[in-house]
């Protein structure tokens, strides 16, 4: 009798798991909310268990930094001088750019940096590429915000709780990002396939790509602001598949920024209307990216 009972519970739980797998696919709000609540609870535990690892990693990094402090210093001095020169040039260009945009009545969307967050957990799975960060709705993070670092695009938030959020990384098989080739401006889609390289989808047949071409976000879709670095063409296979190496070193992520992009309203083509609405004023503090 007991044996029968055990069999029955086993079958019950197997069916329950299968049901979850099948019906959980639709990612209903309820499932999403419960997932978020659960990982929220476990984040402190993850952080505590992670202490020895972060401590040793921090220590070895400190040793490494000390070892290269002199050579780094010299390199940074040179780089600083170089950057100062570039800053002057780019400021001039920025002013120029703003003036021309105002002439053309182009309006940029606004990009707001919501928060900087630390990565607290990683899927570490060959099939699922996502991570948890330690900022959530309490910091202003919402589902569908872009996640970037100084090198470029990392991913986007897909599940947000009070103090944490799950970020779908660009190399996940479910990740699709609207991007463009920086030189030609051809709009395509960047698709992850769980490997280190991403691939380009919907490449127009009459367009050509070359190894080394830079890929930027196109700003379509409204999640990622335009012109963020995404990666470079690293390889074009014999079948014509274009492989992209991400700009961000995904193996070295520690901190990321969550940004919000708001698309500007379409430019007003009729000058008289625009003047009537008082929209000819130059816009300050537009895109920072």
């Amino acid at each position, binding site marked *: 009798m007991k044996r029968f009972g055990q069999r029955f519970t086993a079958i019950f739980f*197997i069916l329950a798991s299968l049901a979850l797998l099948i019906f959980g696919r639709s990612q209903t709000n309820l499932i999403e909310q419960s997932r978020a609540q659960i990982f929220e609870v476990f984040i402190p535990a993850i952080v505590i268990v992670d202490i020895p690892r972060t401590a040793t990693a921090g220590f070895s990094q400190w040793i490494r930094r000390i070892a290269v402090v002199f050579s780094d210093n010299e390199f940074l001095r040179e780089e600083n001088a170089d950057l100062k020169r570039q800053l002057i040039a780019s400021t001039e260009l920025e002013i120029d750019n703003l003036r021309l945009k105002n002439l053309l009545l182009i309006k940029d969307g606004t990009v707001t940096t919501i928060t900087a967050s630390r990565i607290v957990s990683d899927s570490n799975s060959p099939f699922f590429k996502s991570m948890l960060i330690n900022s959530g709705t309490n910091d202003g993070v919402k589902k569908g915000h872009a996640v970037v670092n100084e090198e470029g695009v990392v991913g986007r938030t897909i599940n947000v709780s009070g103090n944490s959020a799950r970020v779908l990384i660009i190399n996940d098989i479910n990740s699709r990002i609207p991007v463009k080739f920086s030189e030609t401006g051809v709009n395509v889609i960047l698709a992850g396939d769980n490997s280190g390289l991403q691939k380009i989808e919907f490449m127009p047949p009459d367009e050509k790509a070359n190894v080394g071409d830079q890929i930027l976000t196109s700003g379509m879709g409204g999640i990622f602001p335009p012109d963020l670095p995404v990666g470079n063409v690293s390889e074009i296979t014999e079948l014509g598949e274009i492989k992209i190496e991400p700009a961000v070193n995904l193996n070295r992520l520690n901190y990321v920024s969550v940004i919000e992009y708001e698309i500007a309203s379409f430019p007003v083509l009729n000058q008289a209307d625009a003047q009537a609405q008082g929209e000819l004023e130059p816009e300050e503090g537009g895109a920072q990216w």
Partner: protein
Amino acid sequence: MVNISQSKENSYGFKAVIPFLTILFLIIIMVLPYKIPLISDIMPFLTLIGVYYWSVFKPELLPIGVVFILGLLQDVLLGSPLGLMPLLLIVVQQFIYMQGRQFLERDFLFNWFVFVMIVSGFGFLSWGIASIYFKTLLDYWSILGQIFLTIAFYPIITGLLGITRKLVDR
């Protein structure tokens, strides 16, 4: 018979949660952000080792409902489809019961050998289910890496679990 096993279960007191906690700890170890190239693709199935170990040596402390909850927790923390891990872990546990766990309670090398077969089945089943779930043929090379690494980690993890088992028995 039922009463005896019942009272045995009760006599563990709060130590009865040790298997649950150890497997939970293994889940957390699996999701730490290591940032070591490759490790994120061939992370060993540590929870499988935990479930296998406790199902063989202290099955009364790892009822199927607990395995289900642990699997769900792993899915939530990893970001994998809900239900994947509970399904796989419960299938493994039922397989052990069907084979007769007394049979496995004997010697370490034999156990390891059986585990090699279980982990291979587990790995390819997870690959198969994930492939169906994403409706695409996923890469299986990393699964092979995961399987080998899990086999390699088996003695270490079971050694550590052996220490906690002594805590339970004390």
